Each structure stands twice: as C-alpha cells, then as structure tokens.
C-alpha cells in the first residue's frame, strides 16, 4: 500500500494513503479535539472543533475530513487554531446549560473536558438559549435537548449501527434539533431503546434514566463482562459502586458488539439486586407454600427424586434445560449432569430458541 509523508507540528509522519490528517496526528501522538468525529461512524465534518492550519490551504480545514497528502505541512496548535477552537467552544457553551454541578455526564463530558483544556470559563456570548422540555417519556433514556450540541452522532448511530433511523435532524439553522418523526417524545416513537445513542453522546443530552443519581462517574468501578441474556456474547461493563451494580455501559472495545447493545443487555440489570430474586433454595410444602432450606437439604431432596424417576421410568424420562444467563462453566456442568449422571442426551439451552 502506498504511503504519504506529512509534517504535523514539526513531526514527520508517514501514513497509508487515504488517512485523514486527524488520524495521522493521532498516530504521531498529537491530540486534536473532536466532537462529531467517531471512527465507527461516517464523517460529517460538522462540529469544526478539529480544525487545523495547513500550508497553502484557504481557511482552517477540519482535520477529520481532510485527507493527508504528500508534503502537507500541518499546524494543530497555532494561535489561529487555538483561537478558533476556543471560540467554537464558547459558542457551544453559549447555548448549553451551565449545570455541570448536577449533570450526570460530569466527569466524562467531552465539552467539559475541552472547555477545561482550552480555558473557556464562560460562554462569552450572551443571548438566546434553547428551552426544550425534558423528554422523560420512557423508562430508559432521558433526552435533554438543551444540552445537545448537534454533533449528530446519535443520528448516525441509530442509522448506521442500529439500522433503525428513528431519529434525524429536523428544522434548520439555530432551530435545528434531533427529532423523532413529528417531533414526538421518544416513548411515542418507534425507538426500541437499544441505547446506542447514549453510548455515542459526548455530552449529557442522552443519559440512562436508571443510572440517574446513582453516583458520579468517577465513583464507578467498571467491570467488563459478557451480557448474560442471549448467546451473542456482547461485551458489557458493569458500573459498580459500593459493591452494587448501578448500571451497564458498553465499550468500543467490545469485540462482538462494539458499543451496540439491545434494550435487555443495556437496561435489564435490575434483577441483580432485586428483592424478589431467589438467593436460597425453597422446598415446596404439602400445602403448596415454600419453605427456605439450606443447599445440602435441597440437593439431597432433588437427587433423591431424580433417582426415583430414573429408576421408575428410565434415563430419558429426564431432561435438562440450561440458561443463557449461566456462565459457560455452569452450562458445561449442566451438560455433564445430563449426560454422565442422568444418562440422557435430553439437554437444551434457551439461547438456541
């Protein structure tokens, strides 16, 4: 494959042809801020935060959509570039609530990070701000369009990753917003609540409802594991605080799924700490009620009854149905139990259904 060599901030970088200036800079260890750019999504070049100065090019091109060319001389931190980025951040903040103190995204908000990095303390431009009602129409996603910076990642994720295209840009200019058809609340749309939009949102415009108030980002321990629902094997991250799972997020590093999850995988974790969840074996009494027992008693009882059935009706009178929520090791043991102990091949698994 042919390569091109360019100079970025005085560093010579050689990259494969077709690489963007942004990628080339990142390969050279030079950080360029981005809001609308996402390696997994198409590139609109819309937020303009990643602008750089390129010799012999008019204006400041956006590095995320500018292809590196042989001999290009790029400056990513000239005074003009920094001034432009700072102004763009000021513009975004001028139309963004200043409620970082209570915002769920605080601590992992790209806008907050860049404002800090570029020393933008205030909006700088007084004027009209959006005043959209909060969309809490559904149990899963809280949409606060006042915080939306219109990077459009959610629109692209819904379209390009999930293939649903439930949301799109609507209206234009300053009135542009991300909307469902007829601008209805998400709960009244065809949204399936996969939450892919949340996973790509760089700010606090889209947040998981169940995690609201459960803890700050920096208090969470992220434990990477596999989703217990179906057999796809999506990577998830348990957000653990004080030994409790308070939420599930996805990660771009998920080998099977990237950041995509389904509604169950992303939001269906309440069973973990649910009071109705069974944590001790129960034995049914002659009157139909259940009595709590210990494991030794319960297993002895089950073994006795299975033995009786096997003696009376043969091995194939027994069958095992395993669950996808169990680990592979558990399922392996269930398989052993069926074949080696019961002596039957009657075993199946819910994820096959």
């Amino acid at each position, binding site marked *: 494959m042919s390569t091109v060599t360019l100079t970025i901030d005085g560093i010579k970088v050689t990259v494969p042809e077709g690489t963007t200036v942004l990628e080339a800079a990142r390969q050279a260890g030079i950080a360029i801020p981005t809001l609308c750019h996402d390696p997994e999504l198409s590139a609109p070049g819309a937020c303009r935060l990643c602008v750089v100065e390129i010799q012999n090019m008019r204006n400041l091109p956006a590095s995320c959509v500018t292809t590196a060319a042989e001999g290009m001389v790029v400056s990513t931190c000239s005074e003009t570039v920094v001034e432009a980025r700072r102004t763009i951040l000021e513009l975004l903040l001028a139309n963004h609530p200043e409620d970082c103190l209570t915002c769920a995204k605080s601590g992992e908000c790209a806008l907050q990070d860049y404002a800090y990095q570029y020393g933008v303390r205030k909006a700088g431009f007084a004027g009209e701000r959006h005043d959209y009602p909060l969309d809490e129409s559904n149990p899963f996603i809280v949409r606060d369009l006042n915080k939306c910076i219109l990077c459009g990642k959610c629109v692209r994720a819904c*379209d390009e990753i999930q293939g*649903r*295209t*439930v*949301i*799109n*840009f*609507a*209206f*234009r200019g300053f009135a542009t917003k991300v*909307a*469902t*058809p*007829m*601008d209805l609340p998400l709960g009244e749309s*065809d949204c399936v609540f996969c939450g892919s939009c949340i996973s790509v949102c760089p700010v606090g415009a889209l947040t998981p409802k169940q995690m609201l108030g459960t803890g700050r980002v920096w208090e969470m321990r992220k434990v990477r594991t596999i989703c217990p629902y179906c057999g796809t094997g999506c990577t998830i991250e348990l957000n653990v605080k004080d030994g409790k799972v308070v939420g599930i997020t996805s990660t771009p590093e998920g080998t099977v799924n990237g950041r995509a999850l389904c509604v169950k995988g992303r939001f269906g974790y309440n069973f973990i700490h649910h009071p109705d969840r069974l944590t001790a074996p129960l034995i049914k009494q002659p009157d139909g009620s259940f009595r709590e027992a210990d494991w030794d008693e319960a297993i002895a009882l089950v073994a006795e009854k299975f033995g009786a059935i096997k003696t009376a009706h043969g091995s194939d009178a027994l069958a095992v149905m395993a669950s996808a929520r169990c680990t592979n090791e558990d399922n392996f043991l269930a398989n052993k139990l069926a074949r080696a102990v019961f002596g039957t091949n009657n075993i199946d698994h819910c994820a096959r259904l």
Partner: protein
Amino acid sequence: MCQCCCSAEPVVDPKAQKLAGVFSKYRGEKGALIPVLQAAQEIYGYLPKEVLESIARELKMPLSKVYGVVTFYAQFHLKPRGRYVIRVCQGTACHVRGASQIMEALQEKLAIKDGETTTDLKFTLESVACLGACGLAPVMMVNDETHGRLTKDVVLKILEQYE
C-alpha cells in the same frame, strides 16, 4: 350474511387516488422524495402526518428522514394553509423601500402574524427572502401572481381581489 360493501362501488378518496398516481409516476426514480412531497402538498394543501407516513412507506425510507426533509425546506407545511398564500418579499431592495410596513399592514388587516393562516383558511402570510422582482420593490406574491410597487393602500386593495 355478508354486510360488507363489496357489491357497492368501493369508496375512494380522490386525493388518495391522486397521490397514488404521484407514487406510480415517481416509482423507482432516484431522489424522488422532494418532488413527491411537492406534489402531495399540491394535492392536500399541506402535509398531514398520514400522508408523510404513506410517502415513507412507498419510497421505502425512514419516516424520520421524510420529517427531516419536510422541516428543512420552507416550502413544506405540516399545518393546513390558506387558499391564498401571500409571500411578502423582505429582500434588500424591498427592505430599503419599506417592505416591513407592508408586512405590518397585512398583519394588521388579516390579524395574523408572519407564518400564520387565518382561521377561515383563506390567507396564509409569509415573509420570503427575495422574489427577484427588485425593480418593483416592495413586492409580494399572492399564490403565483406578483404584485409590485406596493403601498399600504395598494396592498389592501389587492386583498379585496381575492375575496
């Protein structure tokens, strides 16, 4: 016993029939959404939700995309419009020759604001960037008719033509 109307003439909505004609005209054509929306608006006077839904279905595209296009262009309307659409030019030439007074006079007479429609669905009032008839500034259009050299009195007289 069968109570349905299969023996009688099927009930056809003439507008829906026209729309079906539009669909067959544009079937398989690339980039058909905007002309289809224009034709649909021509038929219905505006773009009701059900029409948008059937357009999305026919053109096999997400409704959110149809909605995004409809709200982007000034020409498309989601609410019923007046029989006569008055478009008052607010271009440079008209601006310097008092277009805002013309707009004010119309708003006062029709008791509606820019972008609104009278309750009897007779007039819709809109401002438009430039009608390209700068030599006659200030100018307005009523449907496809252009009226120029407007003054407050002239405007009121023109309105009477559309009674």
